[in-house]
């Protein structure tokens, strides 16, 4: 089965630094998502992306966050100035369609640690 690939698997950064988390969605998928999971808490939706623009974003996705699809394969999440509370597992996901019943394919996540 095709997979969503995320790099790096672990990222350690200093508070205030910028980080870019990278994802390669499944090649024929059109919709892309970022979710995060703070340790011991539920998985939370951050943002969805389609046709080179944000479709929907949560309250968590403030001005510190941005997403981009710089080429035909990569999908990135940038955190401009990291805070301690940004420490979490970040999951990328993709789907072919947008309707609520679509199966989302998730990557294995990037564990971000902000020191």
């Amino acid at each position, binding site marked *: 089965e095709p997979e969503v690939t995320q790099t790096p698997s672990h990222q350690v950064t200093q508070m205030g630094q910028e980080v870019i988390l990278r994802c390669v969605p499944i090649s024929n998928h059109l919709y892309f998502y970022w979710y995060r999971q703070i340790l011991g808490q539920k998985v*939370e*939706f951050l943002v969805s992306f389609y046709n080179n623009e944000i479709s*929907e974003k949560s309250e968590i996705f403030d001005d510190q966050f941005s997403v981009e699809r710089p080429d035909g394969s990569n999908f990135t999440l940038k955190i401009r100035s990291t805070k301690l509370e940004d420490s979490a*597992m970040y999951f990328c996901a993709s789907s072919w369609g947008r*309707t609520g*019943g679509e199966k989302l394919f998730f*990557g*294995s996540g990037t564990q971000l640690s902000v020191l």
Partner: protein
Amino acid sequence: AQTVTQSQPEMSVQEAETVTLSCTYDTSESDYYLFWYKQPPSRQMILVIRQEAYKQQNATENRFSVNFQKAAKSFSLKISDSQLGDAAMYFCAYSRGSQGNLIFGKGTKLSVKP
């Protein structure tokens, strides 16, 4: 706002036995979907089963089945003939009919004893 609640932080089952994981949700929408995702130690979220709200028939995928009680807003997952590989975190999730964004519960950690 939609919410998803999983009241069992941890569950345990003997290998080959059956276990049921509970989930309740709250929504005012009429068109929605419910999911169970499995998160093994590798951390990758894997879809286990999906239920369309408009379907009365409970979804089934091999050893996995759901008990969907729409009026009660309950969506439990039954795992039959539990295997060691079923050990994982299980997340119940909801999405509106028009969008793919998922709202997750806090998860239930399932242990399978040999």
